[in-house]
């Protein structure tokens, strides 16, 4: 029988805050709460990377949390999907270009769904998760390369703008 069909029936989520304001995080909590009860879709908030399928990341990646982000991503067994929750996780939002953040988590790990909004409503998160489930079904079990940390990718430039550097360094890995 086709097991892939059952991936979308029991997605277990792992939540990591890569240094945003807690806005989107409390909305993820609100998703677990009775009003929007995402356990309806069989989701459990496992705190354990080794048993989770969906990685919900909030916040622009700060310098100190980026190793953790890549580490957690690498610990998750395929097939897995990454959701960037909120403007700052998707693109850096209002924090893009600040000296200690990297402007969006897709500078480090491949992101499948970007949930827009600052802060995201639980409805938006649920929509994003539903889209992610559709992607999860297509995913293969092959390893998906995460962008390694190299000094070059995060080298300082003084007018507060790492976008160009990030873009040109990470182009091969993101394609």
């Amino acid at each position, binding site marked *: 029988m086709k097991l892939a069909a059952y991936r979308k029936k029991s997605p277990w989520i792992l939540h990591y805050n890569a240094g945003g304001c807690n806005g989107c995080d409390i909305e993820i909590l609100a998703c677990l709460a009775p009003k929007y009860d995402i356990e309806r879709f069989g989701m459990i908030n496992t705190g354990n990377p080794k048993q989770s399928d969906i990685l919900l990341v909030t916040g622009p990646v700060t*310098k*100190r949390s980026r190793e953790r982000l890549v580490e957690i991503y690498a610990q998750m067994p395929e097939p897995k999907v990454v959701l960037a929750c909120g403007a700052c996780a998707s693109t850096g939002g209002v924090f893009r270009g600040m*000296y*200690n953040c990297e402007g969006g988590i897709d500078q480090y790990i491949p992101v499948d769904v970007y949930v827009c909004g600052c802060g995201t409503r639980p409805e938006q998160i649920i929509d994003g998760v539903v889209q992610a489930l559709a992607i999860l079904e297509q995913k293969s079990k092959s390893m998906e390369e995460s962008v390694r940390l190299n*000094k070059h990718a995060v080298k*300082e430039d*003084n007018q507060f703008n790492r976008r160009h550097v990030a873009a040109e360094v990470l182009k091969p890995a993101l394609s």
Partner: protein
Amino acid sequence: MNKIETNLATLRDDIRSFYNPAMHHFIVMNAVDLGQQMEVQWFFSNYAPPGDITTFYALVNPDEMIPSIREIVPSAWVAEAELVDLMNISIENTSKGFVLEPDFESGPLRKGK
């Protein structure tokens, strides 16, 4: 907000003579880059209303060693450690790396950075 000028030599004595844990609340320590010199400020407030704010400030050169007040105000180590990283100044027995990465060029809040 009443500002009291002091200098690094008499700073500890001034604060010690002023600060009374039962009456005053140490808010935070701050530094402003004025170009050549740097204005370092210590903010205190009263518990009793109206909680008026007392500021000690000293004009220092960026390379001067600033005395630590943590034997007078034990909780000041957080503010001092943060300031050392952000302003790239040197405070007694406070090391870098609390806020920023060790490999980070320190003092992002200085002028011209």
